[in-house]
């Protein structure tokens, strides 16, 4: 827990410093039309660095035995996160409908070990319902790929 707290505080300090460096170039003082672009973000970042430093000191002073996450708990988390990331990569090429169908089918089989009949019905049905609701009713287009083009949409 302590290590994670320290790492997060350090990351926040890093973000703060990057922001400070960037906005210094924009100017943080008084311009022709009042405060310059960097004025507000500069003081926000300074305050964040100070607060994160204080959190860092707090974290260093207290020792907790409780781990941030155990390997057993991290496994299911990554099992959600990794295929989800793969889905977004696939989405760039094949569109949202095919990507979400593949993702749902994969997860249901790999983690849930559900029978293929359930998997096919759900992973085909959900994208079709999504298509009708978004593209037809509300006219909100989703990313489409070669498969939808082949179907003529």
């Amino acid at each position, binding site marked *: *827990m302590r290590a*994670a*707290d320290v790492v*997060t505080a350090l990351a*926040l300090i890093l*973000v703060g410093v*990057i*922001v400070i460096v*960037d*906005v210094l170039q*924009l100017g943080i003082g*008084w311009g022709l*039309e*009042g*405060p310059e*672009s*960097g004025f*507000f*973000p500069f003081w*926000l*970042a300074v*305050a*964040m660095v100070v*607060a*994160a430093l*204080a*959190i860092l000191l*707090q974290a260093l002073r207290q020792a907790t035995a409780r781990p*941030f*996450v155990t390997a057993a*708990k991290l496994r*299911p*988390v990554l*099992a*959600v*996160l990794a*295929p*989800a990331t793969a*889905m*977004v990569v696939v*989405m760039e090429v094949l569109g*949202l409908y095919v990507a*979400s169908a593949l*993702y*749902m089918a994969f*997860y*249901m089989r790999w983690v*849930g*070990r*559900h029978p293929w009949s*359930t998997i096919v019905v*759900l992973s085909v049905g*959900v994208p079709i319902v*999504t298509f009708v609701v*978004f593209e037809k009713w*509300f*006219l*909100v287009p*989703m*990313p489409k790929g070669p498969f939808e083009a082949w179907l003529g949409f």
Partner: protein
Amino acid sequence: MGFENLFLGFSIAITPYNIFVAVIGILLGTIIGVLPGLGGANGVAILLPLTFTMPPTSAIILLTSLYWGALFGGAITSILFNIPGEPWSVATTFDGYPMARQGQGGQALTAAFTSSFVGALFSIVLITLFAPLLAEIALKFGPPEFFAIQLLTFSSFVGLGGGNPLKSLVSILLGFILAAVGLDIVTGQLRMTFGFTELMKGFDFIVAVIGLFGIGEILLSVEDGLHFHGARTGMKLAVVLETWKVLPRYWRTFVRGAFIGFWMGFKPGGATPASFMSYAFAKRFSKRADRFGKGEIEGVIAPETAAHAAGVAAMLPMITLGIPGSPTAAVMLGGLIIWGLQPGPMLFKEKPDFVWGLIASMYTGNILGVAMVLAFVPLFAAILRIPFAILTPLIVVVCAIGSYAVHNSIIDVWYMLIFGVVGYVFKKLDYPLAPLVLALVLGDLAENALRQSLIMSQGSLGIFFVRPISGAIMAVAVFFFLLPVLTPWWRRRRQGTPPPVASTAARH
């Protein structure tokens, strides 16, 4: 007093189309409230892109109805599954779940829904009476007053939020910094884009809400491999009527809960402390205090009344001042801007049909809501019996669709994943997420108010303290910011012993 305004509102809220919209909203909201990982704020965020083509009044009715539904749905999971869907339903599990285990699930649910309804109604009546007055006062506000109120909003997270005040502060600052990324609309300069054109648009709060609350929550809940131990319940009309016969006995608990809820609720982050406070008061004043925690109906009434009174009260500052009292209200405020409305006191003058339609729909929405949840509880509870390996990918896909639809860009889906991981880490380390989202929504407004104030005063910060209204608000804000420093010092002076840490930790 303009009762004709309220009639105008009802004439808008009770059209068949708007009633239909409200029913759909409540239905979806209750489902969202029951599902793990989805709650009021990200439910509203996911549906927001669908409302872009709707008339604004119907759109806000859809989103507020969704919010009422989500509030009701939270009670179902708390009582039947011992899973608080939202932080303010934690106190409901104390007595609700034991009741359900003892076969009194029907009574507990009836009590919870009825108390929610009473609490909500109390706050709506107060909103009807006070919102026009507050808006009238707010019309005289200039930029310094608005900035002072925003500061007050954030100071109350630091001073009253519980938990580590430094972490609340960092959440707020990070939210403001993320809001500042992209084009600076005043000077036209690019800020913190580091040469990436993708960063020019900045970070959309909708995507942040979906990632932080939706994906983050899912990651957190799969950790324990979610096995729901649900208590089964049948909802019979006889049980409902029987419970209603008993409830009037607890009128004191209702009144106390409603007042605590409203009072805490129109300040941000108030619903959770309100529900705990109401529970603690009920226990203290009850003749059956020893039964609390073992399945006492009063222990369900108290937190539910307060949480809903607070949830509704959070709408008051949103419609009158343009400052949201909760993350969900913040997302709705973002919706207002997208629909082309300027949130704030001018709404009452310029768009009375919108404001009063919204207020009237709060009455109709809650009446419809309580009837619907009472009728369909078994149906909603059945959702949680869907296997977890089916629900999880479904929720992730819904979140991805919602994120993409905001700007029709896949980069937002990537942001959603990143925000999801950040949400997971922050939640585990007790960084509060609500202030981050509020800061992200209010970032531009706050910065503009600050800049305009400084232009008025030619760079002097004194302007916030010399104007009477903003000075008074600033004084309270500074007091809240200092509260985490003052409280331990005060305790030490009074007792001469180190303060117990448990009192603040218990709020989580």
